[in-house]
C-alpha cells in the first residue's frame, strides 16, 4: 500500500511537471524561441516516456488501458511527432502550435482523473485486448495530428496556395488513423468472439465505436470539388480528433 501511495505521488509530481513543460513549450513556440522549443520538447517527451515506463513497471500492463495511461501515450506520440516536425522545419512547423495545444488539452483533461496505472486485470494479458487498446491510442493520436493540419489549413488557406499540402497531410493522417481504428475494431471483434461467443454486443462501447467509424466514413465521403466542399471536408476532418477525444472521455466515465 505504501509503495502504491509513493508511486501515485511520483506520478502526480511528474504529471504537474509535464503540464508545466507543455505550457512553457507552447509559450516558446509563440515567442519563436526555436532552440528552447526543441530543448523543452525533448525534455517533455523524455518525461512522458519515463512516466510510461514506470506505469508499465508498476502494473505489468502496457500503458494503454486507463485514461491516464492512454493519454500519456497519446501525448508521447504527439510530442515525438512535434519534435520530428521541429527538426524537419518547413511548412509543417506551422501546425506545431496546434499539436502543443492538443497536448495541453490532453494533460488538462487528466486533472480530473487519478494519476495511476490500470488494474492488473486478467484480460489485460490477452494479446487481442492489448492490441485493441494500443491501436485505439495510436488512432486517436493520429486523428489529433490530422486535426492540427486541418485547422492550420482552414486558417491559412487564404494566404498561400501551397497550404493545400496541409490539407493533404491532414487527409493522410486521418486515413492512417482510420487504418488503426479499423484494426482496433477488427481485433476487438476477435476478442469479443473469443470472450462472448459473438462478433459484438449491443452496448454503449459498441455504439461509440460505430459512431467513430461512421464519422470517419463521413469525413471521406463529402462530395464536390468546389471551395465550399473543400472547406466542409476540412472542418469535418478537423473535428474528427475532437469527436473521438470526447467519446473517449465519455467512455472512461462508464
Amino acid at each position: 500500500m505504501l509503495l502504491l501511495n509513493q508511486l501515485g505521488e511520483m506520478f502526480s509530481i511528474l504529471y504537474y511537471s509535464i503540464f508545466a513543460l507543455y505550457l512553457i513549450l507552447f509559450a516558446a513556440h509563440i515567442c519563436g524561441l526555436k532552440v528552447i522549443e526543441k530543448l523543452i520538447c525533448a525534455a517533455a517527451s523524455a518525461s512522458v516516456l519515463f512516466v510510461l515506463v514506470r506505469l508499465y513497471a508498476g502494473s505489468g500492463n502496457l500503458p494503454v488501458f486507463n485514461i491516464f495511461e492512454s493519454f500519456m501515450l497519446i501525448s508521447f506520440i504527439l510530442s515525438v511527432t512535434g519534435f520530428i516536425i521541429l527538426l524537419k522545419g518547413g511548412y509543417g512547423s506551422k501546425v506545431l502550435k496546434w499539436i502543443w495545444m492538443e497536448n495541453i488539452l490532453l494533460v488538462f483533461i487528466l486533472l480530473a482523473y487519478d494519476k495511476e496505472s490500470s488494474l492488473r486485470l486478467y484480460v489485460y494479458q490477452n494479446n487481442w485486448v492489448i492490441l485493441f487498446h494500443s491501436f485505439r491510442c495510436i488512432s486517436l493520436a493520429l486523428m489529433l495530428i490530422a486535426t492540427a493540419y486541418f485547422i492550420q489549413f482552414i486558417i491559412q488557406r487564404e494566404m498561400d496556395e501551397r497550404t493545400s499540402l496541409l490539407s493533404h497531410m491532414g487527409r493522410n493522417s486521418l486515413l492512417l488513423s482510420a487504418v488503426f481504428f479499423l484494426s482496433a475494431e477488427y481485433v476487438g471483434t476477435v476478442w469479443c468472439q473469443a470472450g462472448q461467443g459473438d462478433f459484438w454486443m449491443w452496448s454503449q462501447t459498441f455504439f461509440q465505436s460505430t459512431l467513430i467509424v461512421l464519422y470517419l466514413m463521413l469525413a471521406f465521403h463529402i462530395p464536390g470539388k468546389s471551395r465550399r466542399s473543400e472547406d466542409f471536408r476540412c472542418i469535418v476532418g478537423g473535428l474528427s480528433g475532437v469527436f473521438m477525444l470526447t467519446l473517449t472521455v465519455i467512455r472512461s466515465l462508464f
Partner: protein
Amino acid sequence: MNRVIEKLSSMYLSMWILVFLIVWTGIGLYMAGADSYINDFQVMNDMHIREWLMSDRTGSGFLKPWFLILCAAMTALGINLIFCSWSKIFKIMRAKFNGRQFYMLIVHALFGFVALGHLGGLLLGFEHNNIELGAGETYSSEEGYELEVKDVHFVGDVKALKKAKRYITRDDLNRKESFVEISISRNSELLKTDKVYLLKPLRYEDVQVTVNRFLSPENKKKSTDFDTGGRIILSLSKNPVLKMFLTVYPVMIAGILIYLVITWRKPHLNRNNVSC
C-alpha cells in the same frame, strides 16, 4: 431511369445516409445507457437477432422500430454502394477511370463484403447465451447439440468471483490454469472434448462453445445434487460467415493502407479520390 440511377449512385446520398446513421447511432448510444432500455438491450444480446425480432421479448419501447430503421438505413447505404460501384465500372469500361480509382473501387467492394458479413452474423446461425452449468451437467440446444461439463477447474480466489467481471484481476484468477472440460455432441454422436479457457473457446467447425465466466458458489441460480461448487456461464453459438468475415476484414484494412501509401504524395491527383 438514368436520373434515378444517378441519384442512387450519388455521393450526396451517401453523405446524407451517413449523417442519418450518425444521428441514429447516437440515439442508440443514449438508449443503451438509459435505465428504461438497459434490460431490453440485455435481452437483445442474449438472443440471436432473428429470434429476437420474432419474439415478444423485444421490449415495450422504441427499441424494435429503432433497430428496423437502422437496418433500413444500412440497406439504403448498401444500395448506394452497389449503384455507385456500378457507375464506376461503366466509367472503367469507357476508360475514364484511373488506376487509383479502380483500386478504391476494389476497397469499396471489400467493404460491401464486410457489411454482408455483419448481416450474415445477424441473420444466420444461432446463439444461446447465459447457459449456467456445473460439473456433470448437460445442456441440449434445439439445433441438436448437447454440451456436457466434465470438470470445472478454477485456480484463484473464489470470493473474488463475486466482483463484476471487469474488476477481476490476475491475482483473483489464474486464466492460464483455470479451465472447464467440455464435450460437445450432436444427435448422440460425440464431436469433440476439450479444455476450454476464458478467451480461448472450443471450436468445432462453425460451432463455438465459450466460457463467459466462472461463478462463485453464492452466485448459483439453482441448486443441484451433484454440485461441486464450481459453476460457469457458457454460450453456444454458430456463425457460418465468421471465417469469411475475419478474412475479408483485414484484407479491406490492408487495401486502405496500400491506397494510402500509393497516394501519400501528389496532392494534386488526390482530391476526392478517397471517396466512392
